[in-house]
């Protein structure tokens, strides 16, 4: 009897879990609708939406890395400083060293990887808590950036470099990307259903599946049309899309991704199951370092300058984005699409309130409140299920 009751509960749990993923999207849409009203529609004009997704991209790149760190039960407080410092390195290479764009990007990514190794070494192999190591990194790399820039802006950068942050895909290329995404979405939805049926897992009906695929395709098409109405799909958005797809695959389908979830869920059990936890955590921080460097490149390119306070508070935005997107700081739970949507929520709040000419201090207050409420909703909904 109890057995049955438990089974029913767990079924309910899964069901509710899906609903939660959708509440995030519903929340995002309601934020948009509110801003649509308060800004008398300015929020929805193509130019603003283009700006919004571009604003999102830097937080999104960071949060894609951060969500792995959080899933593994760790934290990285240094990503804002790494981003600022690596952006500074890129600018120095371009402005003072006259290094061409490809090399500047590669070297900057290598610097990011080296910083990640530094963190990973202390955390994985010397067992210093991640909070401490990255709090140290937060100060160290902010200090290095200050030393590097001597508190002046380093500018201007080369045209090809600036394009990374400010460029757009030509409309035709945008449609090409949309086609690829659309086909992928259709393929994945149907394959997902087919494999569920094959293994006797309860699958959504054909109708629902077609609707789901159609909704994704429609969304991609509308997105492309709107972006093309302005100047095209921004390059940083392309970077985010590629990263998000790649990392979602890594999280769900590879040994590496599975190991990170296992470590976050139960580190000792993971170790005893033969998962090389140290190596995995080490690699994870290298990836995080490189993504922070990439975010730094995009930021510097967008501003066409490196400044001493670049990337301030970016770590907090990234962590907040992950948490709003359903990641648990206890580890073991989180998703990349969730983190990207979380980043979109954060950027929407910034963007909408700026349009409303809300004073800067309000933006912090509202974002802080939304973070707390989002996590509370998450906890409350879990309690209800139990």
């Amino acid at each position, binding site marked *: *009897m*109890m*057995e*049955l*009751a*438990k*089974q*029913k*509960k*767990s*079924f*309910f*749990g*899964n069901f509710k879990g899906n609903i939660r993923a959708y509440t995030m999207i519903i929340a995002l849409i309601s934020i948009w609708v509110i801003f649509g009203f308060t800004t008398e529609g300015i929020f929805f004009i193509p130019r603003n939406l283009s700006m919004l997704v571009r604003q999102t991209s830097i937080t999104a790149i960071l949060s894609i890395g951060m969500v792995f760190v959080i899933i593994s039960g760790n934290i990285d407080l240094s990503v804002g400083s790494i981003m600022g410092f690596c952006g500074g390195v890129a600018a120095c290479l371009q402005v003072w060293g006259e290094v061409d764009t490809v090399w500047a990007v590669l070297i900057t990514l290598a610097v990011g990887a080296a910083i990640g190794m530094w963190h990973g070494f202390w955390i994985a192999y010397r067992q210093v808590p991640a909070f401490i190591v990255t709090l140290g990194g937060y100060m160290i790399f902010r200090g290095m950036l200050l030393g590097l820039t001597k508190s002046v802006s380093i500018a201007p950068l080369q045209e090809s470099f600036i394009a990374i942050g400010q460029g757009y895909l030509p409309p035709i290329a945008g449609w090409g990307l949309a086609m690829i995404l659309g086909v992928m979405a259709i393929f994945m939805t149907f394959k997902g259903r087919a*494999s569920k049926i094959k*293994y*006797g*897992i*309860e699958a959504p009906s054909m109708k629902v599946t077609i609707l789901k695929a159609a909704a994704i395709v429609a969304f991609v098409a509308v997105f492309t049309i709107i972006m093309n109405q302005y100047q095209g799909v921004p390059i940083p958005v392309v970077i985010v899309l590629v990263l998000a797809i790649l990392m979602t695959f890594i999280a769900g*389908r*590879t*040994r*590496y991704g*599975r*190991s990170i*979830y*296992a470590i976050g*869920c*139960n580190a*000792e*059990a*993971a*170790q*005893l*199951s*033969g*998962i*090389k936890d140290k190596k995995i955590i080490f690699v994870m921080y290298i990836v995080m370092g490189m993504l922070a460097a990439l975010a730094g490149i995009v930021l510097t390119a967008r501003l066409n300058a490196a400044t001493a306070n670049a990337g301030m508070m970016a770590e907090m935005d990234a962590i907040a984005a992950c948490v709003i997107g359903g990641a648990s700081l206890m580890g*073991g*739970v989180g998703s990349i699409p969730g983190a990207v949507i979380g980043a979109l929520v954060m950027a929407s709040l910034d963007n909408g309130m700026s349009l409303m000419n809300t004073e800067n201090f309000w933006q912090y207050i509202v974002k802080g409140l939304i973070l707390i409420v989002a996590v509370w909703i998450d906890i409350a909904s879990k309690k209800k299920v139990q």
Partner: protein
Amino acid sequence: MSDNILEMRDITKSFSGIKALSDVNFTIKRGEIHALCGENGAGKSTLMKVLSGVWPCGSYEGKIILNEKECEFHNVRESEQAGIAIIYQELALVSEMDAGENVFLNAWHMKNGLIDFPSVYYHTKQICQELKMNIDPTRKVREFGVGIQQLIEIAKALAKKADILVLDEPTASLTESEVDILMEFLRGLKEKGVTCIYISHKLDEVLNISDNVTVLRDGKTVGTYQTAGLDEAFLIRQMVGRELSDRFPYKTRELGETVFEVENYNVMKEDDRDKKMLDDISFSVRKGEIVGISGLMGSGRTELALSLFGFLKGKKTGNVRLRGKETHIDSPSDAIRKGLGMVSEDRKRLGLFLDQSVVKNIVAASLPKISRHGVIDENEQIYLAKKYEEELKIKTPSLQADVKSLSGGNQQKVVLAKWLMTEPDVLFLDEPTRGIDVGAKYEIYNIMMDLAKRGVAIIMISSELPEVLGMSDRIIVMHEGKITGELSHDEANQEKIMHLATGGEKQ
């Protein structure tokens, strides 16, 4: 005053329309020790949660009558005030605080607005002495063994003037000698007029300590019996509703050659490099053999297994031979690659990923096997997980269900499945049937026998002597990090094992 201190009448409790308890009647006499038995999922915990107010009144049907008064508990605090204290399997002590602080936590004796520590320690000492337990109340709780911690928890309940004490699986993590102390202690409490409800899977304890036994099955009361004159077979029959003719499916078999050999194996403590945790251990296991390792808590049994598996950090010396060849195992991943498996003692801490699905748990130790170039083959994953789900008869709503939603027995089977999938030649089983019910135990024994027949060498660590005696071809007994003796299946009995386990020489 009536004879009955507590009556629970016609208790019915449903979860989403499914009855976990239906018309359960449970009557306790004043001052008795009343055992509550039943398989996992029979409704014991639900009944206790109704009693303690975890499930508040209104969420169930029926009446609770305490001291002839009908009670309605809305939360745990109200039931505590009425004198009901529940001591759960997982102890609720603050391990960094001392014994006195724990006993009076949130019930401080105050003086001028400050905590009166001398009084706290004095009264802790008094309560403990009354219970014939001589401990220093200013020592931190984590410095005591699990057995004493349990007694501290009971002292805490008594400090709150509880007159009904509910003990949920109190001996699950105690050694035999600690169990004896607890039994003695409970008899003392009974003399003082404290009423006990004793929940346990260990039927010998139930028969030993209780005055009456109530058996639950599938959320219904099967009956209440006077303990005097009962035997285990009868209780098992009432619990499972069928006859279990033989508790252990042991059969003598032809054994193969030696696959795993340990010689002069020493391991130093991790925190004290000069102290030996394991001292000069030598033993071997043959293909298809089940070797039982017995010993008291702290004898180094678990440490031996974890160390051989490469999980413990302490410095080690000595030889380990696998299939006749000298080998060094420096990490669990190394051990798995070389054909070792490890079903650990504490399945929640070391065995399971509770928030993950059954399938992810089953494949967790076989990721290299199911992936190519680091990418997991989903088909292979589901195919293999399904195979072991069917082979071990794991009861789960689906492979995608969270493993935490399964019962203890099925969780243990998931851990077993995880290790069987790695296809080990040598399998360590550390307390393979801890905290699971009689029916599931029997199934696990069958799986063990089956594995042995297929040629897997099994090293089983267990605190339950009947299990060691019933399932092992050979029994190794440990005491304080050393092997004190070895007994064959036929010569072994409880007395000989206990003699060796307490440091005696083999006669």
